């Protein structure tokens, strides 16, 4: 399972999974955009580069999702493909190539607009060979 949505009355709560932190972050991005739009309708025509740094993986995950929302809002773009590489030597660094396109009203139909990524119950759970990595997120919509 890439991600699953949990019940939340006023907002949106999901868990994204992955066999690595990279895959977990990718699936979290997919989960987030799937709240707003049918990802199938997004053509990966353009590329945006994202570079981020944070003290820990949880902080990095928050920055990652917040940065994507910023790009959505500032560039009026939607994304469907996320190529992520991570490194850490004390601090965590993320380099990503994000593919998508500018919003096209004729093809893109929107559902709930996400206002922000909250830190409420925000949690990264490290995985082992048995269980994958998990990121839990509550979005303000």
């Amino acid at each position, binding site marked *: 399972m890439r991600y699953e*949505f949990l*019940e*939340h*009355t*006023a*907002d*949106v709560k999901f868990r994204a999974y992955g066999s690595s932190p990279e895959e977990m972050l990718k699936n979290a991005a997919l989960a987030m955009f799937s709240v*707003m739009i049918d990802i199938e309708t997004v053509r990966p025509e353009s590329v945006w580069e994202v570079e981020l740094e944070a003290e820990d993986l949880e*902080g990095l995950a*928050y*920055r990652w999702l*917040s940065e994507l*929302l*910023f790009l959505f*809002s*500032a560039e*009026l773009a939607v994304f469907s493909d996320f190529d992520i590489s991570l490194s850490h030597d004390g601090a965590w660094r993320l380099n990503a190539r994000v593919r998508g396109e500018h*919003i096209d009203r004729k093809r893109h*139909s*929107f*559902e*709930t*607009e996400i*206002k*922000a*990524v*909250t*830190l*409420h*119950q*925000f949690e990264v759970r490290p995985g082992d060979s048995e269980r994958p990595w998990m990121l839990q997120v*509550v979005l*303000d*919509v």
Partner: protein
Amino acid sequence: MRGDHMLDKIEENIYELPIGYKEGMRVPGRIFISESLLEMVEPGTIEQVANVATLPGIVKYSMAMPDAHLGYGFPIGGVAAFREDGGVISPGGVGFDINCGVRLLRTDLTVDEVKPLISDLIESLFEEIPSGVGATSRLHVSDSELTEAFIAGARWAVEQGYGTDEDLEHCEENGCLKGADPSQVSAKARKRGRPQFGTLGSGNHFLEVQYVGRIYDEDIAKRFGLFKGQVTVMIHCGSRGAGHQICTDHLEVLSRAVRKYNIDLPDKQLACAPIGTPEARNYFGAMAAAANYAWANRQIIAHWTREVFAKYFGDVEMPLVYDVAHNVAKIEEHMVDNRLERLYVHRKGATRSFGPSRKEVPSDYRGVGQPLLIPGSMGTPSYVLCGQDRALELTFGSACHGSGRIMSRSQAKKTYRGADVRASLQREGIKVMATEPAVLAEEAPEVYKPSHEVVEVVHALGLAKKVAQMIPLGVSKG
């Protein structure tokens, strides 16, 4: 509700969550709610009331209004005040949509004059006032104009020709929260805020043409300029991407501050900093800038609304009844143990409710109290209430802000179809325009608590008094 056995009933409509409920609670919780509304409150909401009670410097109680429901950080409907000395300020008590709020314009038109034209009128409002996901404004402000709006709020808009000085007198804080610091607004927040300045947004934001269906208090209604059958316009929106980004940016800073100042938190969204520290000061300055952006935004939208009405009805007067914030932290003076104290009052999905004794009440409403504007869900009545002094004793001068969701958006979309919701409203004579049908399903009237029940509790407790009920004629949604 599971967990309500933890609550002690203090008197009718007042429940207390004792200090022992959760480790670290510094004060008890107080939930102002009826028994039947309490049934609908999720257990997580009670946890959130308890979480807020653990914050340093909290005064008296961690409170929740009758429209309380599950939020993030504070519950929605949450109110808490913190003392200047030893207290904290937290974006968890304000939210991302800083100064999301409501304003009400009155007209001298009657329902019979407007009803025949409602369909065209709503279509024009929908066209003239940008709304929906990714909507951009027809206003093109420069970076320095944006800075001025961050500082001056609705006054900036009035100085640009959007409205009148009387409008400012009828805004909470006169449409400008003092202490805004634009240097604490990031380039990202500016980039998001500039094209969205003068847009309604999406989700539960709306512009509604309505009429006064019922008057509960003739004298106060007269003071507020309201009469039965009168057409009014309600605008519900906030600080758009500017506010969302400001909160996101400062949440990260305050998360680090929590470690720096050794504050133990039960929820990361309650990140905060002690009042007086640079982190707290910077957040407050940025939050005030976002609040001012929201007031200017509602001022601009009100002006465009007046322009549309003028096209249909000629020289029609549309004074502002009032404009209230329902997501904000403010410095207010309140009596604590018989002493007047400066407190940082956080209202998250709650409205200020100041009665006749407060100097903040506009001069022409003095002796009566401030108006409170309580929107219903789409298609259901909204209310005008009047602030009461009893609220100063019970809730730091606060009351409810709306009706509160009871069904999640995903469940709503499984249960309702946008087209059906539109058709059913149409049958009731309510014209609805929306950019996306999904929004109509998510905002179907049935997904909210009945707003009249929430208002009844507020009225019965004496937090605010019922003045008028407005019935929707048409809605423009995001």
